[in-house]
């Protein structure tokens, strides 16, 4: 069994937020929802200021507070390290959201927008492949409507039901096909890495061994699967600048 981890190289990150966009397109998240979120920070007083960036996907904690508090087991941890939500079981109590110290959960406040449902097509149709070259158009990925993993639960994509909690899935639908998450694939400077950390010779294990790293809010004992390399954790001095519109 693999044990997936993500490495964020803060020395490389340039804060372009392409990963945020890739995530939105891949997972069809509603307006104002950013499963992958990139902080742009400013520190110090003018004129001695510095700026830094910090991508924040779900941390997929090994000791996840959200999994512990979920009253129905809709939020669960898989052996491959992914923390997922069963959208068909979630009752929408939002306990996971208040328990999470990282603020990665997003609730479906509105009715999901099914305006694109009519566009659902069989993208494996040869006629269509001749036209698309095998690329699945971004507006509605059919992979989100099938169940994933040996446990067979509806866990990928966004906007299935109203009143249900959603968050970053590490792109479970891609990982199960042997692909890396959309954000990792998109990053133009290779600041995001993804792989199996259980295999000691995998590139990600070697990378983690060879670099000094930290986890976000390590002191809480949540043991995140997202490892940060280079840079420094945000301090209380960090002020967020250039926020995208995030409130619905």
């Amino acid at each position: 069994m693999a044990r997936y981890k993500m490495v964020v190289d803060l020395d490389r990150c340039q804060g372009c937020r392409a990963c945020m966009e890739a995530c939105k397109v891949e997972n069809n998240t509603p307006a104002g929802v950013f499963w992958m979120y990139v902080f742009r920070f400013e520190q110090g007083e003018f004129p001695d200021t510095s700026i830094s960036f910090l991508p924040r996907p779900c941390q997929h904690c090994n000791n996840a507070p959200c999994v512990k508090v979920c009253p129905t087991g809709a939020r669960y941890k898989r052996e491959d390290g992914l923390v997922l939500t069963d959208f068909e079981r979630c009752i929408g109590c939002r306990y996971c959201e208040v328990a999470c110290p990282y603020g990665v959960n997003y609730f479906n406040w509105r009715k999901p927008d099914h305006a694109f449902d009519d566009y659902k097509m069989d993208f494996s149709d040869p006629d269509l492949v001749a036209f698309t070259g095998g690329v699945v158009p971004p507006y509605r990925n059919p992979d989100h409507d099938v169940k994933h993993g040996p446990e067979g639960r509806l866990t990928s994509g966004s906007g299935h039901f109203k009143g249900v909690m959603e968050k970053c899935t590490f792109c479970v639908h891609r990982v199960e096909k042997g692909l890396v998450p959309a954000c990792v694939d998109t990053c133009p400077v290779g600041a995001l890495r993804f792989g199996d950390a259980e295999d000691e010779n995998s590139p990600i294990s070697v990378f983690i061994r060879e670099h000094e790293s930290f986890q976000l809010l390590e002191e809480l004992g949540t043991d995140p699967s997202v490892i940060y390399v280079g840079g420094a954790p945000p301090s209380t001095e960090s002020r967020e600048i250039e926020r995208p519109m995030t409130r619905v």
Partner: protein
Amino acid sequence: MKRSTIVTWTMIAVGVVLMVVSYFFLATPWCNTAVECSNPRVPFAPAIFVLGVLIAFSSAVYYAVAKD
């Protein structure tokens, strides 16, 4: 012992046993590292727990109402 007393004690015992068994053995195991940790070992185990609570307290009604 009277019959009503015996039935009352049986109801209490059954209720408590249901509670203990469903809480410690039938419900979700105390872990959060695998998929199994999100499913109860027996379906509707929490309902069995609640049933145990209901049976245990119903014994009071039975005892009060029962004719000897």
